């Protein structure tokens, strides 16, 4: 699962960029045709997809196999 998530992170990023390139259009009237939503979404999703990759890495390394039993372990 960890490996899948590590691969998913750059794939999501690629689809976002690709989606922006394909859909931004001067003649379109929908939100998906405007650049601003894409700029906002890509800027917020970039750290999220990095986070997904890091989460996948931690899961791959087995760091979630044993969760902390109390906050003192955090």
């Amino acid at each position: 699962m960890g490996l899948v998530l590590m691969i998913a992170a750059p794939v999501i990023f690629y689809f976002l960029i690709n989606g922006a390139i394909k859909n931004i259009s001067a003649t379109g009237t929908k939100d998906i045709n405007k650049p601003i939503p894409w700029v906002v979404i890509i800027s917020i999703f970039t750290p999220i997809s990095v986070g997904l990759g890091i989460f996948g890495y931690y899961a791959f390394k087995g760091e979630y196999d044993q969760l902390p039993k109390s906050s003192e372990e955090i």
Partner: protein
Amino acid sequence: MSETKGIGKIIFTSSLGTLIEWYDFYIFGMLAKTISIQFFPEGNETTALLSTLAIFAAGFLVRPFGALVFGRLGDLMGRKSTFLLTLVLMGGSTFLIGLIPSYASIGIFAPLLVLLLRLIQGLALGGEYGGAATYVAEYAPANRRGYFTSWIQTTATLGLFVSLGVIMLVKSNMSDAAFNAEWGGWRYPFWMSIVLVGVSIYIRLKMAESPLFSQLKKEGKTSTNPLKESFGKRSNFKMVLLALFGAVMGQGVIWYTGQFYAQSFLENTAKLDFMQSREILLWGIALGTPFFLVFGALSDKIGRKWIMILGMLLGAICYRPIFSTFLKDTNIEQMTSDIHKTGSPFYVVSSTVVKADTISSANSIATTTKTCWMLPNNIQVVENRTDTLTNYKMGLSAVLKKDSKPIFNGKILPNDLKWKFVFLVWCMIIFVTMAYGPIAAFLVELFPTKIRYTSMSLPYHIGNGVFGGLVPFIATLLSVSFTNDPLVGLWYPIGIALLSAIIGMLFLNNKIDTNVND
């Protein structure tokens, strides 16, 4: 804390403020059409840009940022003063939006002011929830934490309920023109906010600081840098990521699809009448909301994990059948075609010629007609068609070209079908209550007291604001890319809910942490 005495008052004061914040946040979205006419007129590139920013930046960028700003403050200064501040900011900006003159009166300042106030609203919302949930949880006894915090969970849904109700009440008591005028009825829900917020501030001022936070402060154990400890410390950052991807991400899309996408789908895709689509949602919410408490309480008995995961899985499995039923039962085009084949009669309730224009040449006339039909299955529908009559002045045989693609909207369902739709919406609200009811207790138990506000606020607002808020955008994106399937947009919430459920199943712990004092 083992005492439950006085917890009712704590829940009431915390929930009331949070409900008002949600009310404030929703009325802007629900009155978006009127607001855009007043402040963001069409055909002006600058106002279009500001409008898009107001919609996207407030929800996606500013909410998580607000979670960081106010989460940090809450862990440094205390829960009480921080969520008092968010309430003032939210209520004040909502009230002020209702006072801004229109674009016609003050030009570009109108949309600029609206944008600024909308961003403050997003910021305040980002800080409110974590404070209220933490505050209640830190008062609640361990064996009833799920139940007590589930009251906070009802506020997002009740806020939607109240805002819908207030708008419908105002709208039903005046004409459309009076409601949509520059200083018309659409402003009343904004003005009402100041009264609600005033009452809530008065009540909240009388509240004491959370006992756990007070104790930490007394012992000098509060965090000096909550952001660094929450996200810079690997062991805690790991839990933030787990909360986001294993729970809140899936919960966010279930919440948004059940409460918002459903209503938008009923109105814009199934083409139901404005009032009836809202009535269906209101019933669904009213009958479903008590289940937040049911699942919150149940999570105290059997743990939080499996209830949340079941809610996500049920959503992922049932969304397509539910939305497909909405489409099938309101498919007038199919019904009219069937009726033509069987020869069953239509019944015309009313027919109005909206306009009759002479077009292109003197011997052609296009007539736009609104006809209200009562179909044999008792669905009332408005047919909007433009037929063209040619040669009518020439003494030749006139030719009537009938509109081949009339638009059907304003559908009013008969009672049996309406209640069937209420039941389906209710089912989706039940999935919301399962995924959302226990989540405050789950998040509170995941993080230490000294950085709890910061650590739980960010994943919560990314899950709900970003993953949930993106449902309509991604649904449009998918429907443009794959035009054959009208339900293709649902693959986004289904996919995210499934992924989150799988991550949750694999990595979350079902154990209830009885000690949140650490």
